[in-house]
């Protein structure tokens, strides 16, 4: 368990963690097959980071290293599942995710603009689908659709968002 609070260190940790949290979450998500697993691993990562936190120096590379190790330990428990990436691929994706972080930050900024451009019904649907605890089959039932039809619709919305983000960043559609 974590040690009792040391407020200055705790505050410093929180500031650093809040600054890097989205990047860490994206990084962990890219290594794991599901959002649920990524959320679980992120909780382990937070605990591991706090337990190992000593100084703000080089926090970012250290935190990414911790997150990579926690994710790999998690994946080793599922080594026989062919949906789970092997160590070689996890390391490759982890390296690329770190390299591309600034690009990903820009894409997240552009996404704000692209979400506003979505038809309202699609925006509401995609956000409903991403709401914590939402089951796609339940949402599909509520909408009178089959789960597969809903997956396909979400697929098109995500692809449209990705296209919009790309256009926005290449200045075809300035924000």
């Amino acid at each position, binding site marked *: 368990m974590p040690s009792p609070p040391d407020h200055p260190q705790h505050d410093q940790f929180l500031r650093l963690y809040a600054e890097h949290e989205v990047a860490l979450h994206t990084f962990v998500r890219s290594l794991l097959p599901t959002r649920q697993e990524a959320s679980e691993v992120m909780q382990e990562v937070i605990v591991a980071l706090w337990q190992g936190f000593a100084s703000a120096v080089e926090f970012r590379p250290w935190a990414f290293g911790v997150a990579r190790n926690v994710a790999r330990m998690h994946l080793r428990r599922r080594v026989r599942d062919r949906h789970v990436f092997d160590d070689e691929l996890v390391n490759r994706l982890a390296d690329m995710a770190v390299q591309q972080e600034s690009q990903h930050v820009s894409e997240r900024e552009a996404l704000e603009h692209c979400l506003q451009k979505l038809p309202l019904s699609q925006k509401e649907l995609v956000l409903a689908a991403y709401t914590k605890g939402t089951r796609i089959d339940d949402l599909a039932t509520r909408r*009178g659709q089959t789960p597969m039809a809903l997956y396909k619709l979400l697929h098109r919305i995500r692809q449209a968002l990705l296209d919009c983000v790309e256009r926005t960043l290449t200045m075809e559609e300035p924000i």
Partner: protein
Amino acid sequence: MNTDWHDLIQRHIAGLTTEEEAALLQNALKRDDAVARLYLRYMNLDVALEAHAASSEAVTEMLIAPDAATPGRSTRWLSWRPLAAAAAGLVFGMFCTSVVFGYVVPRAVAKEKRLFPLRNGDFEQSGGALPANPPASFNIWSGDGAELVAGSGEASPKSGRRMLRFTRAETDPHTAQGFPARCDVYQLIDLRQVWDQVGADDEVTLEVRASFFDADPGPEGSGQFRCRLLVNPQSPQTVRAGWPESRFDGCAYVRTYLDNSPATCGQWRTAKAKVILPRNARTAAVHVSVIRFTDAPQPDAEFGHCYADDVNLTVIARPLPRKE
């Protein structure tokens, strides 16, 4: 093999790939930088949408403080805040402190939005002609001349693969002379489903949205799309039995018009109407229609170029402010 990587990556994210497809994806991610970059972009999108969903007012079944979503930069800040706050909450939680969620849900009066289970509101289920009015049961669409169709050369669905096509007017007691020519489509809703889900003291608003498309306004004259919500104190059985007059008995209703013109031709437009539900309301009818104003009666007017799609019903429950 010509693989659709967008499709494969998204199915992997959704946990829908077979073992063979998962192996194919792994191999591609190892040897192809472009596929790996695309994969990481989807993962970035996945996390970003999750963060938006955690903070967006548009999300269903979510409590949110309405005055928290201030425009401009603070909105962006807020949209990322819950993740950090949640994480911080976990850390704070370790230290038995509980102040963090004050960031996310401050003091304002909360409201709750739910997508109501309007059956086949996107018209994706099955195709072909709708059953004729009056509605034979609840939660089905019925109409004058109307059918569910796939996209065609003149119109594509607003979303999905199908949409509603208005085809033919029927004589209506309220338009007995046949004009304006009107094609009506309804779905009857049993509001007990709503009252079961909200608090006894809540103010409940029902909001309907529908999108319309006119592919060819034609030379016959001006026209309108209409989106209407009728609420009625009678039981659904009584409303159905006394159709069509009963739909207006003791009724509150709200409607929105969209005028058709050459300028609006060829584009999807959305109409929205909302009504505060009287506590005695037991039945609602969602009504979408197209109307053509003509100088002469046209009891069987054709409407082959008019479409609707994505009809949504939302329940908004808001606790009434307490008296001091």
